[in-house]
């Protein structure tokens, strides 16, 4: 049937395709296409184009569009073509519109009507074409227009139509779940369709529905299990085989569904164990598709309530995957390992070398999957190796998206599992150095906090050691070119605080370095600000220690430059620095106590030390302060503060009189004079910066008044107080925050104090200093060493510690494997027999007739065999009487109920379900003997199919001859 060269296409079209194919360059191709577009534009408007010609034009439009050019001028013709009466044109029309238009295109409205009409067509091929278009083109708004018809088509006699109708509903569900929520019963009914194709398609919407709400589908577990069992037992027609495996795609879908249904549900899971175990045994692991099914089984097993036997099979499969040479299988193996590791952590150990191999593989996909796995199995004993690897990899890649991802993972692991502060600082340094711009600013604040506080250790020497090692490392790094801004901020802050603390480095050395930084990154104001503040701290420290401060010339130039800076913040800092240098040692000691960064500073929000001043001012006739909450809208609400603006009562509407306001001497005017007064006593703050000088001044006295020991400024309080509410412009508020920084030395600009507790806690709990493994395996080669450090070695001892380390799931000791295996073999045959096997027996007994040729009877066989089996074997004990559920299932058809009831007495629910469905599809309403009803179905189906087959001789060559495949099925039918 090779239609090479395209039957029914004009030479013109073939030439077009050919010339495009032979085009040597993109430009040439474009030229040809543009020419073609011109031709088509001309031709399409000509009157009286023969239909066949028109169809070809439309196909040429599709071609143009596919090559990436705009063919929108012809869309309307494609739409018109869908109106045509002949299937031949209609289908091309539908194909073109589905390729051209998105669901929100304006032309859709012209198609909906046609679709509605076509859905009612007598010709099922037209209905199919319309349904294809429905799947692509109908959007949320137009769903109601076609929904009733699509639902009606679920009962269409052609399976192709039913299948497409199901897919259309599936699509509707994706677009607007509410539109089809009342149709769940229809989906359930289609699950029992005679045609395996329809049944397979129905699994798509069901999977989605179950994903959304597991609980309301629990009753279907039995049906799914029984369907899966039948599929696995090769009861579907041979045409569904793929590489000798029975309907693998349907199996995979069913396994996905079972995984959802069995998750966290012991009872449901128990029903699945057997069938999943069967599939494990039956699946051929030499083909890709067999492995795909096995992988899905592993996913299922790891999701449902754990069963030791299945877990063992899953572990075997994983072992096979990982040992395979195929990268695809290794990838799946790693993924499956990641799923199973939560349930049985010990299996990772067997595969350590394989995992390491994957980690070192040049294939990025595989490598990333492996990192995902490592991320899942990180614990305090292997965090160093894993994070190290991650950072190495992070450095080597360029893809920013993935880089960010892996950085956040590194940080997360480091914060959670860091074995020591030293390690944490070093790791963070590496992360910042290579990906500082991708790191969340909070991480930087955490790091500073850690260096300042040194978590949970009272040991002072350890503490100072930590700091001086941090300083050392930063001085080493600081010269490197192009460090990320965040990292430089951390460096400046640490150098400012602790640069001279251990006396190893002189003040001039550190200040020199800081000046270098400020100079090298002169575009980055934040870094400069940090650098200046650090300078101030160092000088203050020197002065407090009684040493004379000689300011380096470059430092002097820096200060001068900054005091003329455009940034008010930098200016402020420069002036402050100058002011501090001019003070005497005692004052400096008070305002900038050394090593007080981690001291809590208390704030008295009432600012009592200002009371005198305020009173004096009021005596002199100043207006008293009105708290913000008591201010009425007209007086001060609009005072530059956006928040206040919004608070203006709605009745006011727009405030056109806003210009008058500056005259009103409200809040801000009352405070500034006061604080200037007080600040003058301490520091001569230059006039120009008076607004900001205020803030510094206000907070300064508070610390100097009571000395560092007792007075504790509460940082969060400061920010609330001096941040937004009282000061309007954002620049003022940032400088307010920044000046706190100067004073108490601990807060990085945006209140990082809130973030830290989490880490400190995590670190304390997971801190685990001993790492025997690495020493233990030093003799073995490099890789083994790595493996050991990753997986905690193979010694029992180590495993114990690793179990204690993080995995709380009950883990089986590995020794158990060997013991369990034989036991399992014993158990297997005993567990086998339940209902389905009995059904098989049933089939055998009934089987009498020879094979038939009608392939579709196989489908009926799938369903009816169960029924027969059950009727012959009605002595089978009924255990779980789930009858009512099954009944409700078919409740909407009276005949069904009757028949269902008929079988009901003797059979268990699975059979009921299946019998119910078969009766639902037959017309035998009398509820008579089963065989008759089957025969009816068969008769009505047979000729139809034969007709269809004869319609096209081409297809026949592919027709199956089912007789050899599964004779039992056919015997059933007549039995």
């Amino acid at each position, binding site marked *: 049937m090779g239609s090479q060269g395209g039957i029914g296409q004009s030479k013109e079209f073939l030439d077009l395709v050919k010339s495009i194919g032979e085009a040597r360059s993109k430009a040439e191709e474009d030229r040809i296409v543009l020419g073609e577009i011109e031709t088509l534009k001309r031709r399409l408007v000509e009157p009286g184009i023969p239909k066949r010609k028109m169809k070809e034009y439309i196909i040429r439009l599709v071609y143009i569009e596919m090559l990436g050019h705009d063919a929108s001028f012809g869309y309307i013709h494609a739409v018109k073509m869908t109106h045509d009466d002949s299937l031949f044109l209609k289908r091309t029309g539908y194909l073109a519109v589905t390729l051209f238009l998105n669901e929100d295109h304006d032309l859709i409205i012209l198609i909906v009507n046609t679709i509605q009409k076509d859905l009612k067509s007598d010709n099922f091929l037209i209905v199919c074409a319309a349904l294809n278009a429905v799947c692509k083109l109908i959007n949320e708004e137009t769903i109601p227009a076609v929904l009733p018809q699509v639902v009606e088509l679920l009962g269409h006699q052609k399976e192709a139509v039913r299948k497409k109708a199901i897919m259309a509903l*599936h699509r509707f569900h994706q677009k607007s779940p509410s539109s089809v929520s009342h149709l769940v019963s229809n989906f359930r009914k289609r699950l029992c369709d005679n045609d395996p194709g329809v049944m397979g398609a129905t699994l798509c919407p069901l999977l989605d529905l179950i994903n959304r709400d597991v609980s309301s589908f629990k009753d279907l577990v039995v049906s799914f299990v029984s369907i899966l069992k039948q599929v696995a037992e090769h009861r579907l027609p041979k045409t569904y085989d793929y590489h000798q495996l029975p309907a693998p795609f349907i199996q995979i879908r069913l396994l996905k569904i079972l995984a959802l249904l069995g998750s966290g549900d012991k009872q449901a899971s128990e029903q699945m164990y057997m069938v999943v175990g069967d599939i494990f045994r039956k699946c051929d692991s030499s083909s890709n598709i067999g492995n795909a099914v096995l992988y899905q089984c592993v996913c299922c097993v790891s999701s449902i309530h754990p069963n030791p036997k299945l877990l063992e099979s899953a572990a075997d499969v994983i072992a096979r995957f990982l040992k395979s040479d195929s990268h695809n299988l290794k990838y799946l193996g790693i993924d499956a390992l990641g799923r199973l590791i939560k349930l049985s952590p010990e299996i990772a150990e067997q595969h350590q070398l394989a995992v390491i191999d994957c980690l070192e593989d040049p294939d990025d996909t595989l490598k990333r999957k492996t990192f995902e796995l490592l991320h899942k199995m990180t614990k305090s004993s292997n965090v160093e190796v894993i994070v190290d690897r991650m950072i190495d990899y992070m450095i080597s890649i360029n893809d920013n998206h993935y880089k960010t991802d892996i950085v956040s993972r590194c940080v997360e692991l480091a914060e959670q599992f860091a074995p020591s502060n030293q390690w944490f600082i070093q790791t963070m340094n590496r992360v910042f150095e290579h990906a500082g711009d991708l790191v969340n600013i909070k991480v930087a604040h955490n790091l500073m906090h850690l260096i300042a506080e040194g978590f949970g250790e009272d040991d002072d020497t350890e503490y100072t050691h930590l700091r001086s090692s941090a300083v050392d490392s930063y001085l080493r790094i600081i010269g490197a070119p192009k460090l990320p801004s965040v990292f430089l901020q951390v460096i400046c802050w640490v150098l400012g605080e602790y640069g001279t603390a251990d006396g190893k480095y002189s003040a001039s050395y550190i200040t020199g370095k800081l000046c270098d930084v400020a100079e090298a990154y002169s575009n980055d104001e934040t870094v400069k600000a940090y650098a200046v503040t650090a300078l101030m701290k160092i000088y203050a420290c020197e002065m407090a220690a009684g040493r004379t401060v000689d300011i380096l010339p470059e430092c002097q130039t820096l200060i001068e430059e900054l005091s003329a800076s455009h940034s008010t913040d930098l200016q402020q800092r420069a002036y402050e620095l100058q002011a501090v240098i001019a003070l005497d040692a005692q004052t400096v000691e008070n305002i900038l106590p050394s090593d007080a960064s981690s001291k809590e500073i208390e704030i008295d929000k009432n600012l009592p030390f200002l009371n005198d001043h305020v009173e004096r001012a009021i005596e002199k006739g100043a207006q008293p302060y009105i708290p913000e909450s008591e201010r009425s809208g007209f007086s001060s609400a609009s005072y530059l503060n956006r928040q206040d603006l919004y608070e203006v009562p709605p009745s006011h509407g727009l405030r056109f009189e806003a210009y008058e306001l500056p005259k009103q001497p409200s809040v801000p005017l009352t405070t500034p004079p006061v604080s200037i007064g007080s600040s003058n006593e301490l520091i001569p703050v230059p006039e120009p910066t008076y607004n900001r000088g205020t803030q510094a001044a206000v907070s300064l006295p508070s610390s100097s008044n009571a000395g560092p020991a007792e007075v504790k400024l509460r940082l969060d309080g400061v920010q609330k107080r001096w941040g937004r509410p009282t000061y309007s412009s954002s620049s003022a508020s940032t400088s307010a925050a920044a000046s706190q920084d100067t004073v108490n030395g601990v807060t990085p600009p945006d209140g990082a104090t809130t973030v830290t507790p989490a880490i400190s806690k995590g670190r304390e709990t997971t801190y685990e200093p001993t790492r025997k493994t690495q020493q233990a395996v030093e003799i073995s080669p490099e890789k083994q060493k790595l493996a050991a450090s990753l997986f905690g070695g193979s010694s029992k001892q180590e495993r114990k510690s690793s179990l204690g380390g993080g995995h709380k799931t009950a883990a089986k000791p590995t020794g158990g494997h060997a013991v369990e295996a034989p036991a399992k073999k014993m158990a297997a045959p005993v567990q086998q027999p339940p209902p389905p096997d009995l059904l098989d027996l049933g089939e055998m007994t009934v089987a009498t007739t020879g094979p038939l040729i009608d392939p579709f009877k196989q489908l009926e066989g799938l369903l009816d065999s169960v029924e027969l089996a059950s009727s012959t074997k009605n002595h089978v004990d009924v255990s779980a009487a789930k009858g009512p559920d099954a009944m409700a299932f078919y409740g909407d058809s009276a005949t069904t109920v009757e028949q269902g009831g008929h079988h009901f007495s003797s059979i268990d629910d699975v059979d009921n379900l299946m019998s119910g469905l078969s009766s639902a599809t037959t017309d035998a309403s009398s509820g008579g003997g089963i065989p008759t009803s089957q025969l009816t179905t068969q008769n009505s189906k047979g000729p139809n199919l034969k007709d269809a087959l004869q319609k096209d001789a081409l297809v026949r060559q592919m027709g199956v001859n089912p007789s050899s495949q599964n004779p039992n099925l056919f015997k059933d039918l007549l039995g």
Partner: protein
Amino acid sequence: MIRFILLQNRQGKTRLAKYYVPLEDSEKHKVEYEVHRLVVNRDPKFTNFVEFRTHKVIYRRYAGLFFSLCVDITDNELAYLECIHLFVEILDHFFSNVCELDLVFNFHKVYLILDEFILAGELQETSKRVCIFSYALTIPYIL
């Protein structure tokens, strides 16, 4: 769920492109370009799966043609890899010994066959015979 299917040759020429999620034209071109770049130079020993934005692309090469499927991150990769192969088998049956030229000249038929195989982003029919059968039924009308 399948987001899109692309058939491209080694030069990156699109032989077939079917999208199951709405995308702007410019976005489609970008996707086609990016997928081609991702896929074309990969070592044949490597996995047939590549991360692509927030999804993954499963691809398979047949002679000079790359079949690429973009699927959700949680989907079964190997199954989709085989799904590509099944599609190729279907084409092979239909065109008897399919080659790139068949697809070039009969791209509209390929689209129609694809519609019988995958619909609304899901495998609709996994029986080779039924797929071809459904399509072939309409041939008498076309010829």
